[in-house]
């Protein structure tokens, strides 16, 4: 066996030597045979003839010897490759066009696959990520709701399904002290098992102990690698040091390693992965029997062999037990346990798959084009192929050779495309919406290389097979006689090419319709009235440390003074502060009691709550519908007031005049516990992509019922942006130099960013559709052009017989129209069935929208007819004299 291998290796690597030896050996034999016959008395010529008859053809023997060598396949493979390369070299424009087309199409596929590979396929950066689950509450009203801390503690104590169960909630902190400006850091409050759930360990120090969950056991913090380096110069003695957060001293107990990914959260969300700066302990405070407040999120690592469903049932049972222990009735809430993966990527999965489908269609069109080009070229090579068949080449060998050519083209295109994809991926990532999951993990990686290679090879075989089989079906006699002109071969050949063009046009139609639907959806979203006016509005957020701003009165006065000062900045029309901004994920709710109304059983009146200064609404451009805004007169000691939105008025006081009605939060309210409704404001849409608005109300800033320390500033001004931002910072600094001003952004940027996902999807599908129709137009042009060149004598004859130029043009257009119309109709039908896939991605547009379908149909026909303009004109230039002479 070793011999066998050595022999084959020699045959492979020292092919030239082996070939030469073979030649020598054969010639030696032949010469001796000739000598033998000459010795027998024949003439030289006769001897040669007899020897030839006895021996057989040299080439045949050599072929057999080569086969016997066992390197046949590779031998012929290399030969085919060299031949293919020569073919391409000799016709550079053809090679460039076809390789470039494949490069663009394969490159686009690789780019999209890069995104899919990094976002959907690659596992999350935690050990055994499939075991990590999120825990929510769910009900009919709220499909995903956070947990109550004491409920969570009971789950943790009693549950046996989890290796570790933890909870976390958003808790940004202000870092001050030291030489630099105070800075706001993203932080989370976590229970002690949090990092154990994720499977991560601090690089310095340790995790939180359970003891710290009880208030009063010290203020501790764990830093992220980035903050440790940027704020503390990667000091090796950081563990044990005290730093000032929110005006209080916190001891650093640990530092997490670089690349610690945040698992994402729902409530005041920080997008997945976006670096968290610090973690500090969550403390269980208050009455453990009161389970009404829900504000922490659950995350857990399942034990081996436990499924999410089993954990969910167990937690539900625990919940029922809790209710029993506390003497409460059955709750409307249910526990929900969802795998983390689904939480992180779930929403983007469908869109990515649609994109993959779209780009796959582009590749199919490119393949059809390539096949068409190869078919066209095969027609001109008929003579050469006929000769080779006549000389004894086997058809399968011929097919293999032609396939090698198309594989070479495809692999070359794939390699070039991979390069394009690398750049394309970078551009893609920059276009991605800010909250796109795992965006920072997207790059061209090993799976993408493998994918590109496989796709290239498959593509090469796909578009090469038909031309290769077609070419090998040539009857050698026909090819040789005609001297290159195809006659009966044309029938099948042109039918194939026509079929390819029709399929190209139909596929391009499908993509164009997809893009058209997405465009309409995007426009619908953009033109949705958000309920506020976003131009010229600067926003920022300020967070007052609780240790220094202890009472509602102090907090209220701060923001009241700040907004008054901001309003006096030159150029400012209105300045206000509110507990939140639209479309930032704020969703704090409460139940309430309405005077004179009883909530239906198992339901309650509930609404979103906010706090705002008087000018908040004017600054944002929210219209006043009835009554009045807050004034300076709404302060502690005077009648407590609220402003509600239109949705709340409609829901709870349908058909009534709402100004003057009263609400309260006490179950047995005194006179001073009642809040009077003084105004109704217009609805602000909850999300950019929906027309819904939740009932909501605002408390006046000076009458805030709890310390609303974190507020967003809203400043409407036509002043220069830079100076305005600086002026806002100055005003804040004037009131308290230790405060950081964070999240400075313009409202119209926020609004623009809110439709980032549909815009992203549309841009991509639009590009693919553009590419597709371009390829289809080129394909149509190619086929019509070729057909015209074949029919030139016919046209010349017609014109000689009296046909006008217009008649000839009409003939050409008729042929083109036939192809294009068939393709368009097929495309529209195909789109009708496929468009259903888009249903969840488009807003207020029917997947069978007639306007889009009609527009695309007309556009495709117009483009295709345009593509035939040049060939049609060329047809009219047919010289009747030349045509007559040729015949």
């Amino acid at each position, binding site marked *: 066996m070793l*011999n*066998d291998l050595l*022999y*084959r290796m020699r045959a492979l690597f020292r092919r030239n030597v082996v070939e030469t*030896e073979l030649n*020598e*050996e*054969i010639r*030696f*034999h032949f*010469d*001796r*045979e000739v*000598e033998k016959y000459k010795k027998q008395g024949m003439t030289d010529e006769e001897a040669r003839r007899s020897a030839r008859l*006895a*021996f*057989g*053809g040299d080439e*045949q*023997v050599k072929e*057999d*010897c080569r*086969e*016997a*060598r*066992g390197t046949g396949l590779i031998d012929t493979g290399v030969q085919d490759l060299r031949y293919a390369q020569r073919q391409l070299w000799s016709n550079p424009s053809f090679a460039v066009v076809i390789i470039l087309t494949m490069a663009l199409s394969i490159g686009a596929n690789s780019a999209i696959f890069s995104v899919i590979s990094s976002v959907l396929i690659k596992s999350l950066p935690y050990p055994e990520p499939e075991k990590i689950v999120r825990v929510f509450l769910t009900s009919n009203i709220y499909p995903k709701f956070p947990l109550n801390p004491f409920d969570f503690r009971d789950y943790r104590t009693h549950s046996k399904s989890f290796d570790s169960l933890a909870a976390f909630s958003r808790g940004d902190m202000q870092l001050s002290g030291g030489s630099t400006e105070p800075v706001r850091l993203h932080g989370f409050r976590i229970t002690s098992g949090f990092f154990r759930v994720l499977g991560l360990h601090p690089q310095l120090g340790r995790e939180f102990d359970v003891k710290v969950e009880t208030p009063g056991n010290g203020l501790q913090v764990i830093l992220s690698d980035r903050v440790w380096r940027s704020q503390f110069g990667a000091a090796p003695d950081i563990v044990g040091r005290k730093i000032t957060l929110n005006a209080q001293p916190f001891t650093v107990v640990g530092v997490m390693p670089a690349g610690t990914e945040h698992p994402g959260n729902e409530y005041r969300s920080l997008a997945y992965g976006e670096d968290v700066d610090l973690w500090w302990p969550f403390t269980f405070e208050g009455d453990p029997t009161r389970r009404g407040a829900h504000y922490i999120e659950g995350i857990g690592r399942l034990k081996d062999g436990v499924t999410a469903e089993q954990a969910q049932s167990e937690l539900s049972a625990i919940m029922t037990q809790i209710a029993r222990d506390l003497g409460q009735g059955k709750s409307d809430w249910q526990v929900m346990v969802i795998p983390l993966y689904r939480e992180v990527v779930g929403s983007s999965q469908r869109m990515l798959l649609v994109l993959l489908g779209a780009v796959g269609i582009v590749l199919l069109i490119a393949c059809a084009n390539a096949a068409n080009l190869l078919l066209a070229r095969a027609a001109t090579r008929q003579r050469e192929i006929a000769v080779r068949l006549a000389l004894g080449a086997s058809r399968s060998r011929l097919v293999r050779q032609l396939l090698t050519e198309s594989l070479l083209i495809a692999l070359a295109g794939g390699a070039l495309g991979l390069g394009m994809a690398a750049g394309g991926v970078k551009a893609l990532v920059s276009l991605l919406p800010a909250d796109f999951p795992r965006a920072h993990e997207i790059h061209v990686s090993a799976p993408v290389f493998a994918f590109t290679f496989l796709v290239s090879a498959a593509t090469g075989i796909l578009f090469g097979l038909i031309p290769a089989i077609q070419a090998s079906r040539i009857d050698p006699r026909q090819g040789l006689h005609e001297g290159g002109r195809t006659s009966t071969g044309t029938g099948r050949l042109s039918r194939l090419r026509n079929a390819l063009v029709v399929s190209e046009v139909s596929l391009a139609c499908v993509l164009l319709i997809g893009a058209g639907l997405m465009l309409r959806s995007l426009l619908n979203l953009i033109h949705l009235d958000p309920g506020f006016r976003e131009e010229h509005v600067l926003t920022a957020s300020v967070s007052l440390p609780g240790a220094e701003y202890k009472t509602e009165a102090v907090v209220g006065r701060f923001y009241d003074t700040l907004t008054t000062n901001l309003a006096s900045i030159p150029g400012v029309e209105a300045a206000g502060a509110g507990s939140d901004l639209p479309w930032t994920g704020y969703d704090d709710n409460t139940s309430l009691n309405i005077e004179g109304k009883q909530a239906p059983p198992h339901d309650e009146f509930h609404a979103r709550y906010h706090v705002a200064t008087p000018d908040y609404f004017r600054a944002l451009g929210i219209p006043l519908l009835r009554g009045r805004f807050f004034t300076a007169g709404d302060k502690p000691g005077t009648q407590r007031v609220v402003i509600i939105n239109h949705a709340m008025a409609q829901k709870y006081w349908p058909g009534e005049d709402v100004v003057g009605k009263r609400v309260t939060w006490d179950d047995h309210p005194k006179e001073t516990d009642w809040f009077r409704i003084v105004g109704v404001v217009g609805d602000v849409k909850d999300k950019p992509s929906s027309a819904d608005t939740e009932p909501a109300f605002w408390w006046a800033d000076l009458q805030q019922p709890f310390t609303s320390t974190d507020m967003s500033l809203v400043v409407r001004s036509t002043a220069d942006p830079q100076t305005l931002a600086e002026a806002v910072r100055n005003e804040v600094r004037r009131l308290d130099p230790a405060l950081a001003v964070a999240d400075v952004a313009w409202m119209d940027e926020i609004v623009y960013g809110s439709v980032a996902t549909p815009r992203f999807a549309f841009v991509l599908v639009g590009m693919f559709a553009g590419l597709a129709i371009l390829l289809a137009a080129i394909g149509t042009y190619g086929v019509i052009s070729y057909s015209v060149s074949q029919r030139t004598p016919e046209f010349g004859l017609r014109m000689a017989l009296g046909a006008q130029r217009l008649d000839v043009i009409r003939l050409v257009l008729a042929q083109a129209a036939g192809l294009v119309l068939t393709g368009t109709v097929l495309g529209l039908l195909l789109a009708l069935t496929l468009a259903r896939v888009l249903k969840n991605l488009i807003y207020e547009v029917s997947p069978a929208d007639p306007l889009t379908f009609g527009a695309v149909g007309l556009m495709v026909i117009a483009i295709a007819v345009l593509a035939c303009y040049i060939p049609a004109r060329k047809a009219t230039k047919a010289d009747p004299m030349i045509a007559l002479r040729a015949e």
Partner: protein
Amino acid sequence: MADERLELPQGTLDLLILKALALESLHGWALSERLQQVSREALQVQQGSLYPALHRLERRGWIKANWAISENNRSAKYYKLTRQGEKQLEVEAAAWRKLAAAVGHLLDMA
């Protein structure tokens, strides 16, 4: 004369080559002549099929080749049997004899 020669059954060419080379090292043409001689022109050995067979046997390691100057002063490729080839020859010859005996036996049965 060509019509009177018997066609070689499949696989026996290898056996004949091995046997011929067992006696002495030969180049391709000499081997061809020898085979024709020894079979007294009774066997039809296609000269063209000799070389593929030689190359195949060389690949299997049963014969070994080297270039040397031949009797007419030209360099030629000589083949000779290897030790493995000798063993293979014994095996195949034994098999052939067994086969021939069995077939003959069958034919003798009236």
